[in-house]
């Protein structure tokens, strides 16, 4: 990292003058098939979409190619850019990017936010952009003063020529800089010179989130806008057979009731009349092929299926032979339910559809896909569709929908509304709307040698594929194995010589989707809980066994040791309190957690303390890393203690926060987060805090009760 990086030969830099004055800088990442070169040839013919805009009024606007959903990118992206730009931090503003290929994710090749990848993916691009802008501003100053650029320096938005005492602000140089030819290469600071990166930095979006001015999708209003709610089928894939809208249309404020492919839209002047109108619809549904779906039945089916061989995801050594010759074998089965994302801001989307244009306002994680899907429905070329990305009131994966469900539906409604329209989902719509984290079943068998070390490990996984039928299918499904179904299992970080992981991917009519930590949300739980069982079966301390199995994983070992040390692993606890440990590698980051928990009267698990250690490479904003671990832990505890989506007769049972409960402040434990200092490239932070939570908790509950919990959520009846 200390070696200076340069703008690569195949990256394509553009600079330009902003409308109304100022400097724009943009960088096109190299693309397969020479697309960048084609754009370069076409340079004059497309408008410049910049990453940074330096105004003559000294404002510096950083254009965020990724969505802000709480994870802090509207601060970390400017930090990256300004590490090199050296503008006055108090002058930095952030804007969300329009949809354009220049803002495509450097790895995924589309504009999106997900997979805990913003920091790793933008680690170089935003710094290069800052370096490029600073270099040009300095060159403009040097030219103006007729001095060598190397005799100038930049500091807090000012170029300084120390020898002559001359100074010029970035704003005053922006127009001149825009006329220069960009340099062929720029060098980036070595890590030891960082002044922003790695320093706890206040978030730029916090003030607007404490006075009501932050604008989320639900807050958008455009002239002449109507509001719609949609009644969707009670069973996934159901169809309307009879609709009586007479009473609905009598509700004052209701303008129209229209069928759309996803259901029945009630279009009104504002949310409340729309909702009242919807309550008055009389509908007969054909439930379709999913009428019989029941999660109880699925649970039984999954358990049977797991006893048969699935598609091999990983095989090393001779697992069957090693199991046969093992001194001791143990087996266990784990189950986790469907889960809803339940972002605090329910889904919504504003669409203004005209004959030759479509303008969309929404909080999305998936701009490129949404634009393409919206264009198709609108019957327009994608360039005619514009998406304004607002702040997201939580995402957790749900707002990166492979079918663009909430955007496509809103365009459908706009078509029949014949006016700009905002489609609003209620909490009930959200929880019953599908696109869940899949239900999973994990079956293990381990063989131990005579000294209690695991020598064989087989793991059979049953659950729906998330990637099947999406545009990632080709990339993610190999030999019948969806990589996200087995992540965290097939790449088991512990050294077990004979390993087999196989997979069944039953097809079920419940739409499923990535949910904060994706496959790791079940493998983290099952692998780490089963490893605890293995440790006890072999008469070993669960922390010590992990240490032994991590001999060739120094970063994970260091994280595990740090968590154990800070938690005083081995020290006596108050009576009735147990301690559990878990570690998990995901999104290229290493996280270990130690949880202290007890059981209250009636079997209610109480979590007292969570100690978390993380190695996510070089941190950008360490305070954000801490916040994401805290948030991930609360998210993980909510899933472990509270949540399940169940289906009966094809219908989702849960509907709002009374039966799909969230952890409350009085249930939130004390959380301590420790970051392992690292100079490795940044890795994921938004998701890796989640997977170790549930196993650390069930392991702690075992320590105090002797009861193994193998099914989430943890029920009082498991512990009473």
């Amino acid at each position, binding site marked *: 990292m200390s070696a200076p990086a340069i703008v690569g030969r195949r990256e394509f830099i553009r600079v330009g003058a902003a409308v109304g004055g100022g400097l724009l800088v943009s960088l096109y990442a190299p693309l397969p098939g020479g697309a960048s070169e084609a754009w370069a040839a076409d340079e004059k013919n497309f408008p410049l979409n910049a990453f940074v805009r330096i105004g003559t009024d000294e404002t510096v606007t950083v254009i965020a190619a990724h969505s*802000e*959903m*709480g*994870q*802090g990118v509207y601060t970390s992206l400017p930090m990256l850019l300004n590490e090199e730009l050296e503008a006055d931090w108090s002058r930095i503003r952030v804007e969300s990017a329009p949809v354009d290929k220049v803002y495509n994710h450097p790895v995924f090749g589309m504009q999106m936010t997900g997979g805990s990848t913003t920091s790793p993916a933008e680690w170089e691009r935003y710094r290069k952009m800052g370096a490029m802008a600073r270099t040009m501003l300095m060159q403009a100053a040097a030219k103006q003063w007729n001095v060598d650029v190397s005799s100038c320096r930049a500091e807090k938005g000012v170029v300084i020529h120390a020898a002559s005492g001359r100074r010029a602000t970035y704003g005053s140089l922006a127009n001149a800089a825009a006329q220069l030819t960009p340099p062929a290469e720029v060098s980036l600071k070595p890590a030891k010179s960082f002044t922003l990166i790695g320093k706890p930095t*206040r*978030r730029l*979006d*916090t*003030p*607007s*989130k*404490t*006075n*009501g*001015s*932050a*604008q*989320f999708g*639900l*807050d958008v*209003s455009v002239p002449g806008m109507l*509001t719609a709610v949609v009644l969707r089928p009670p069973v996934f894939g159901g169809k309307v057979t009879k609709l009586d809208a007479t009473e609905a249309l009598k509700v004052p404020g209701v303008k129209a009731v229209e069928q759309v492919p996803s259901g029945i839209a009630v279009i009104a002047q*504002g*949310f*409340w009349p729309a909702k009242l109108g919807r309550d008055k619809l009389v509908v007969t549904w054909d439930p379709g092929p999913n009428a019989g779906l029941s999660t109880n039945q699925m649970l039984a089916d999954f358990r049977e299926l797991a006893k048969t061989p699935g598609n091999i995801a990983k095989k090393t050594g001779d697992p069957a032979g090693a199991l046969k010759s093992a001194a001791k074998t143990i087996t266990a089965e784990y189950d986790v339910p469907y889960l809803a994302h*339940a*972002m*605090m*801001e*329910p889904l919504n989307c504003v669409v203004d559809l005209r004959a030759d244009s479509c303008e969309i306002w929404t909080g999305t994680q998936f701009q490129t896909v949404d634009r393409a899907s919206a264009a198709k429905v609108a019957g327009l070329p994608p360039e005619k569709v514009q998406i304004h990305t607002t*702040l*997201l*009131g*939580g*995402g*957790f994966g749900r707002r990166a929908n492979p079918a663009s469900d909430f955007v496509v539906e809103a365009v459908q409604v706009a078509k029949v509304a014949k006016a700009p329209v905002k489609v*609003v989902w*209620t*909490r009930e719509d959200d929880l019953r709307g599908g696109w869940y984290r899949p239900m999973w079943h994990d079956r293990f068998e381990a063989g131990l040698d005579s000294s209690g070390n695991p020598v064989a490990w087989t793991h059979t996984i049953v659950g729906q594929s998330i990637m099947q039928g999406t545009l990632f299918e080709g990339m993610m499904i190999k030999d019948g194995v969806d990589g996200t179904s087995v992540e965290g299992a097939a790449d088991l970080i512990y050294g077990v010589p004979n390993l087999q992981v196989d997979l069944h991917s039953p097809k079920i009519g419940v739409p499923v989707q990535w949910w904060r930590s994706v496959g790791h949300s079940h493998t983290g739980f099952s692998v780490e809980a089963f490893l605890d069982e293995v440790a006890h079966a072999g008469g070993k301390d669960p922390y010590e066994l992990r240490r032994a199995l991590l001999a060739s994983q120094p970063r994970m070992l260091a994280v595990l040791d740090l968590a154990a040390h800070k938690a005083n692993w081995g020290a006596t606890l108050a009576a009735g309190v147990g301690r559990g440990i878990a570690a998990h590698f995901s999104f290229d980051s290493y996280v270990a957690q130690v949880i202290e928990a007890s059981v209250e009267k009636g079997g209610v698990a109480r979590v007292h303390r969570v100690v978390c250690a993380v190695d996510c490479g070089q941190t950008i904003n360490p*305070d954000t890393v801490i*916040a994401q671990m*805290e*948030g*991930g*832990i*609360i*998210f993980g505890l*909510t899933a472990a203690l509270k949540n399940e989506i169940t289906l009966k007769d094809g219908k989702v049972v849960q509907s*709002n*926060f*009374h039966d799909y409960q*969230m*952890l*409350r*402040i*009085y249930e*939130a434990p*004390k*959380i301590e987060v420790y970051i392992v200092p690292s100079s490795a490239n940044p890795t994921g932070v938004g998701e890796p805090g989640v997977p170790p939570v549930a196993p650390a908790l069930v392991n702690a509950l075992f320590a105090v009760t002797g009861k193994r919990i193998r099914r989430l959520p943890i029920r009082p009846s498991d512990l009473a």
Partner: protein
Amino acid sequence: MTSFFVNGKAVHVDVDPSTPLLWVLRDSLEMTGTKFGCGMALCGACTVHLDGKAIRSCVAPVSRAEGKHVTTIEGLSENLTHPLQKAWIEMDVPQCGYCQSGQIMSAAVLLAENSKPTDQDIDDAMGGNICRCGTYPRIRRAIHRAAELAGQRSAK
């Protein structure tokens, strides 16, 4: 016609009196700082003050506000100077931020009634406000800090 005060200003709205105050604020008055999260008094995102008491505006018919004073997040201070806003910024409490209007409005009533709340007091007063992003540890710290800041202010 329902008439009441929002952040000190008289407003008159011509809506069905059973319409929840939340939707009158958001849709009729275009004050979107108050949020919708559940519509069933379960999450606290819609918390506002009615004559100084915290209420869930999603289940409060606007008729309840007749002649009364409603305070929303927009009216907490003119320029981010309320101790809670200062503490929230100092501790960087929000993540997505969507629940925070409601959190702050609940905390404001707590502080008005109890200038030095304990952790237990905070848990009791804030239990109705969900934060899906999990900012609870920071909310606790920030309320303590706001109490400190408010104390300094009144000592001056």
